[in-house]
């Protein structure tokens, strides 16, 4: 298309591969996307935690987390839940179809700052999407981190995303992976129970650890409560916010939580900052 | 009307255990302005007024209440809402009852017989608004405008609002408490505004409305102020499917205005609020009154009179006119 002189004009990209993570009315579909333009592909760089505006021309755009780490290769991954007009249109895309991408937007997880520390990710449902790039990034740089723990839960085993990766994860000796579902199921040999409870049972030491959480608001609330119980300090806890967005560049006005624009000052916030924003948990 | 009596009654109602608050009119922040007042206790009732400036139809607040999810363990507040109504406003309440938009048990209707309101724009044009509070009062045959300590008598015809000239029901059609004696009804004037447009030919009408609708800024105040526009999920907000595009141009503005007017066909109680609040001064009332006139003349139906009636668009008569059918 063209280079990014005009921030409102998206890049064209092609769906290289796509598959369903979950089924049902609110299905989640993952897209592996490659830019059409060689130059864009070369110049594009994103960091774990950032988002991009993806869309279908003629329908519209939505802000979606980039669910892959730049360490994985020259492509982007998005996991999209079928909710509204744009996501419905995205779900109709198949391999080889075109979509548009602009971004990357927002700040990112300060992964360099966290070097030498234990990383603990706590995800729920589609909230695992922004956690996945952290996991992948740390996996690619195990030497720089003291360890990696992942807690991930969903309502049922069918609602878990990225299932095809669990097997490899289980083999990974350096990754401690804890999966959970809300209600007991047959042939499920992982945890059963809500994510905050699993966290409490796991009882990770707060020492030299960074905890990152994302998921439904109610889960985040109890996870934060339990992290405090475990002795985590405010600056050891990170989360990502989301709000309705249109422009992605801090102009259209709607994504503010208090005085912060989620698209520019977020989506990644540490708990200390978040506590000062009155609207953050609204 | 006796203001003392009004305040006394309002204080009694507002103090009732089963009443959440009372909605009435109070003096605004400057000039002629009158603002809706939400009175929660007997003391607050002293603020209330009823004057020819109380044009606002407060029935809109009955359906404007936001039902938010309650914090765990909290009971919903299902106490009643008390509401002061003029004749036209009471028809909105009746129509809401017809549509089951509200529960009769949940409202206390305080009826105020209405001798007719002044037109705020006409008033401000003739007697410019001041920063200091100003007032208008009824006299036997007109109004007194009180501003800057000066009193001016004005004849009724000079300032009477258009909707009041056309009014058929100045006395509340339903009420639990009636304040004062019913006023004598007057012969409704001929609706010149609608006639004028009707008498144009098709092309002139198109040009007329094109000019009007092009001014629309789509602030949706006409929709929001309307006591009978209370859909939780308005078709105009819908994106999937998109009925009316968000872009503001003549085509979409017309679509919006057709949809709004049509959704009020056989429901509009002609309180004139849409026209009053429009920042672009679009004569929206003409659209509604035109439809109301057709409904009255062709189908013999008037909305908002009988709470037990069938809604116009959800009923039919086998002998409805069908002269337009090929």
């Amino acid at each position, binding site marked *: 298309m063209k280079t990014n002189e005009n921030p409102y004009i998206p890049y064209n990209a092609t769906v290289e591969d796509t598959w369903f993570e979950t089924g049902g009315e609110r299905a989640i579909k993952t897209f592996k996307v490659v830019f059409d333009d060689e130059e864009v592909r070369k110049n594009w760089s994103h960091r774990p935690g950032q988002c991009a505006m993806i869309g279908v*021309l*003629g329908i519209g755009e939505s802000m979606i987390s980039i669910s892959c780490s730049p360490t994985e290769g020259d492509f982007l991954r998005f996991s999209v839940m079928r909710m509204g007009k744009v996501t419905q249109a995205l779900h109709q895309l198949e391999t080889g179809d075109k979509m548009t991408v602009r971004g990357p937007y927002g700040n990112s997880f300060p992964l360099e700052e966290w070097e030498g520390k234990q990383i603990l990710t706590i995800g729920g449902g589609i909230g695992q999407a922004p956690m996945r790039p952290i996991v992948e990034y740390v996996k690619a740089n195990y030497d720089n981190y003291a360890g990696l723990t992942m807690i991930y839960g969903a309502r049922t085993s069918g609602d878990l995303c990225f299932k095809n990766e669990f097997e490899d994860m289980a083999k990974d000796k350096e990754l401690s992976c804890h999966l959970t579902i809300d209600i007991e199921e047959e042939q499920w040999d992982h945890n059963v129970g809500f994510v905050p409870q699993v966290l409490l049972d796991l009882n990770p030491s707060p020492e030299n650890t960074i905890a990152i959480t994302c998921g439904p*608001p109610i889960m985040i609330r109890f996870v934060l409560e339990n992290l405090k119980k475990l002795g985590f300090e405010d600056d050891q806890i990170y989360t990502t916010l989301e709000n*309705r967005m249109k422009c992605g560049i801090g*102009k259209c006005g709607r994504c503010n939580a208090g005085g912060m624009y989620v698209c520019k000052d977020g989506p990644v916030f540490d708990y200390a900052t978040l506590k000062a924003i009155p609207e953050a948990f609204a | 009307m006796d203001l003392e009596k009004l305040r006394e009654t309002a204080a009694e109602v507002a103090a009732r255990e089963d009443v959440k608050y009372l909605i009435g009119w109070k003096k605004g922040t400057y000039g002629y302005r009158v603002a809706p007042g939400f009175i929660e206790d007997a003391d607050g009732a002293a603020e209330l007024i009823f004057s020819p400036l109380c044009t606002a139809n407060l029935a809109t607040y009955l359906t404007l209440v936001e039902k938010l999810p309650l914090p765990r363990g909290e009971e919903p507040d299902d106490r009643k809402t008390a509401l002061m109504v003029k004749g036209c406003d009471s028809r909105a309440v009746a129509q809401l009852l017809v549509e089951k938009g509200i529960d009769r048990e949940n409202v206390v209707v305080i009826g105020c017989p209405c001798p007719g309101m002044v037109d705020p724009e006409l008033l401000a044009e003739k007697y410019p608004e001041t920063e200091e509070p100003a007032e208008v009062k009824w006299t036997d045959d007109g109004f007194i405008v009180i501003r800057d300590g000066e009193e001016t008598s004005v004849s009724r015809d000079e300032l009477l609002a258009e909707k009041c000239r056309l009014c058929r029901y100045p006395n509340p059609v339903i009420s639990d408490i009636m304040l004062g004696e019913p006023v004598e009804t007057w012969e409704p004037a001929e609706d010149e505004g609608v006639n004028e447009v009707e008498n144009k030919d098709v092309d002139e009408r198109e040009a007329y409305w094109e000019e009007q609708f092009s001014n629309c800024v789509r602030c949706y105040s006409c929709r929001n102020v309307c006591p009978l526009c209370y859909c939780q999920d308005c078709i105009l907000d819908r994106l999937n499917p998109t009925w009316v595009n*968000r872009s503001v141009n003549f085509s979409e503005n017309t679509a919006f205005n057709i949809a709004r007017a049509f959704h009020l066909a056989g429901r509009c109680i002609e309180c004139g609020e849409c026209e*009053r609040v429009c920042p672009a001064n679009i004569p929206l009332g003409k659209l509604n009154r035109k439809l109301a006139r057709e409904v009255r003349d062709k189908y013999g139906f008037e909305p908002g009179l009988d709470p037990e009636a069938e809604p116009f668009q959800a009923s039919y008569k086998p002998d409805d006119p069908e002269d337009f059918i090929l």
Partner: protein
Amino acid sequence: MSAMLLNKEKWPDFVGRLTGKKLWAPQAGGDGMRFAPVAEGEVPALDYGNTRVPPKQAVFPQTETLFRFQVDGEKVEEPKLEEEAVLLGVRPCDARAMVIVDKLFSWDEDDPYYLKRRELVTLVGLACTEPGLNCFCTSVGGGPASTEGLDLVMIDLGENYLLEAITEKGQALLAETEDLLEEAKDDVAEQKEKIINESEQKIKRSVNTEDIPGGLPGLWEDPLWQRVSASCLGCGTCTFLCPTCHCFDIQDETEGFDSRRCRSWDSCMFAEYTLHTSGHNPRPSRRERTRNRINHKYNYYVDKFDVIACVGCGRCINLCPVNIDIVDILKQVEEAL
């Protein structure tokens, strides 16, 4: 050549000189005064209070096409913005508003559409000699003869307009019309000051805004928000008519094979504005939305750009259907501090 006099009789000639540029001026319409493009050969009169809709639409149109495209994405066409425009008779508050909004549109990432239009526009201001009933510009850092944002300011001296160039664009305009102007005499400065002083005296409404930006965060849960928003209808009048409100919505519109992505003004007072697809709304009621509107203008904007995003034009007060009065709200905020 900074202060010049233009005889009012020569006003039509002055307007006639501004050919080749799109002219905007306040004009009477069905909806009261509004800024609209001037038809060829027409001479706008300048004796008006203020327009209902602010002139922001000249630089930030209510609906603006971002680009046109074919649905396959192969052909994307951007608008070519190159027509120069002159806005005549802009009130100082509205010009100041543009300066305030500039800060946002050039913050971090530039907004090419807005900034391009700003670059192409020349603002010819008219100082207020008869401020409106609800003007309170002096309370928020402006004034009836503020020149901030203007390229050229005109002051009504009775028989003449006093023209003062503020920027190079204004200078150029004066140079183009030099033969119509007279050099101002020395006593003009005195006359001007007197007029401005008188005008300032006529502004009746005021509020002390000094402590408001710092105080608002502490009033987050104050009952005052419930009180002032109880009667709000949730319409967009206050925001659409506000010269500093700049929020927008982006939508794709397809008509046959013709598609475009466009942005239209949006209002923080609409429920739909922040509504998530899931049905969750972070600002679920009019109380939060009113609070956000005031906070955005008097708190968030001050934090980010060090200026109050309200110019005291009084439009939202004049036209609010239910008498929600921002001066009154600010006074209540003051009291609650």
